[in-house]
């Protein structure tokens, strides 16, 4: 049996945090839309894939440098998210939840088809802006991309927290999530806030996609598994809790990575990479059965 050192262990934690950071970003996107509209946006993953293709096309076909392409992609995704809400979601928003869910599934298929038609199904390479070097930090060997991913994810989370906590528009976004009728009475333009929520969600997805592509390769299915992980993260943290989504994402990332690592021990030798996705689904199932409000969510209380 191999002997595990503390450095080995930390290495797995860092790698887990990097994939967890990506889950956290996409989970945040799911939470933002769920809080304001009460639905899970099943197209969230495909929207992220589309954004990533936009970044790739800017770099590979139009000769853009990475960071300008990154920023441009965020802007395009933001506007795209707003347009999606205005054109696709708003017309069905007053209908039943099921109707909106079906529309988001339709959107998933539509975007997936568009990506295939436009760029084909072969995997493309989007390089990491952080390079391919690895760093040795006290015996822990960490790829630069992992460090960069964690830093970007953390930075985005802090920015978003500041937006919600300290700005007028962030306060309005939260007010709409808590009580839309009341928000209208104080003068908040609710439909624009919902559109803004979609814009933010699309932007978060774009970041998640661009951070995912360098490690798994860019193809039309790239974000489908990530969406399941993000969904598990959101459910684990509490589907209406942004802080929970972040914590859930990081925990899930570390947990899954640890399981892969522990397969070298007899106790965990049943686990293999193929079980990663079912494991996430198991997390969803267990949380929904044992604690439906998640680790950080408030149980839904209805006053009659």
């Amino acid at each position, binding site marked *: 049996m191999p002997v595990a050192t503390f450095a080995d262990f930390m290495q797995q934690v860092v790698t887990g945090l990097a994939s967890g950071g990506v889950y956290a970003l996409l989970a945040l996107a799911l939470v933002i839309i769920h809080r304001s509209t009460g639905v899970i946006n099943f197209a969230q993953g495909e929207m992220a894939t589309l954004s990533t293709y936009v970044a790739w096309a800017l770099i590979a076909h139009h000769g853009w440098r990475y960071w300008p392409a990154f920023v441009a992609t965020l802007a395009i995704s933001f506007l795209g998210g707003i347009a999606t809400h205005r054109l696709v979601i708003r017309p069905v928003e007053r209908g039943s939840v099921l109707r909106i869910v079906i529309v988001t599934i339709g959107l998933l298929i539509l975007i997936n088809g568009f990506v295939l038609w436009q760029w084909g199904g072969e995997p493309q390479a989007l390089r990491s802006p952080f390079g391919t070097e690895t760093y040795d930090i006290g015996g822990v060997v960490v790829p630069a991309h992992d460090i960069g991913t964690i830093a970007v994810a953390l930075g985005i989370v802090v920015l978003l927290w500041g937006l919600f906590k300290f700005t007028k528009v962030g306060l309005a976004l939260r007010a709409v999530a*808590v009580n839309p009728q009341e928000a209208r009475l104080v003068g*908040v*333009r609710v439909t624009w806030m919902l559109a803004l929520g979609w814009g933010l969600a699309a932007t978060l997805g774009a970041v998640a996609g661009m951070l995912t592509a360098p490690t798994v390769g860019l193809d039309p299915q790239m974000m489908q598994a990530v969406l399941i992980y993000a969904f598990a993260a959101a459910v684990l943290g509490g589907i209406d809790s942004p802080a929970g989504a972040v914590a859930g994402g990081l925990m899930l990332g570390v947990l899954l990575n640890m399981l892969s690592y522990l397969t070298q021990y007899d106790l965990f030798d049943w686990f293999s990479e193929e079980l990663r996705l079912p494991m996430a689904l198991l997390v969803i199932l267990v949380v929904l059965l044992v604690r439906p409000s998640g680790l950080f969510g408030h149980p839904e209380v209805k006053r009659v």
Partner: protein
Amino acid sequence: MRTLLELDRVQARYGPVQALHDVSLTVGEGEVVAVLGANGAGKTTTLRAISGTVARSGAIELDAKALKGGPEAAARAGIAHVPEGRGTFVDLTVNENLRLGAYVRRDRSVKEDLQRIAGYFPWIAERGGQRAGTLSGGEQQMLALARALMSRPRLLLLDEPSLGLAPMVVREFFRTVRELNEKEGLTVLVVEQDARIALASSSRAYVLEVGRVALTGTSAELRDDEGVRRSYLGY
């Protein structure tokens, strides 16, 4: 007295159900006017028609300008509507509720207003970080009033502020409203089930009956007329 709000033959409906048939009323600048009547008479709908939260027709003018559009537009025109059943954002803190009250304002004097409001509600300053949902019913109603004041409204609409509150708390609430009216000239249109306290706190009143104005007069007249009290106000 200058007329601030004027409703001329206003009608309103919820789907196929007509809730207001023909309501005309005026509120002068600096006045406190009460709207009374039994359940289902159209009191709440009258306020909703003014703030645009219900489909309506007929003329509604604020300061001789027609009010059009939904509640977002009404808020921008200077109408603060405190709806029935408190009207606070329970998951947000007291301070965040107050900040939202000032949402439509563009000026920078929001801080001064927070201080001015603390003068009327001293407890608010100490509990700014508390979630509104953890306040008592009376405190939430006070917070709803404080939040409405943060918008520096030209007209305050109060819907059944006494609902579910202890008599002592109700008296304190109306005392604060009167104080605001006297000190700051705040104009108020209040809908109230409790006719006694509403008549004691207002200068004029309208009595609604199935979506129409059945009766109007000064609050003192209505209070002193036993026939009116018996047949319309039930006390």
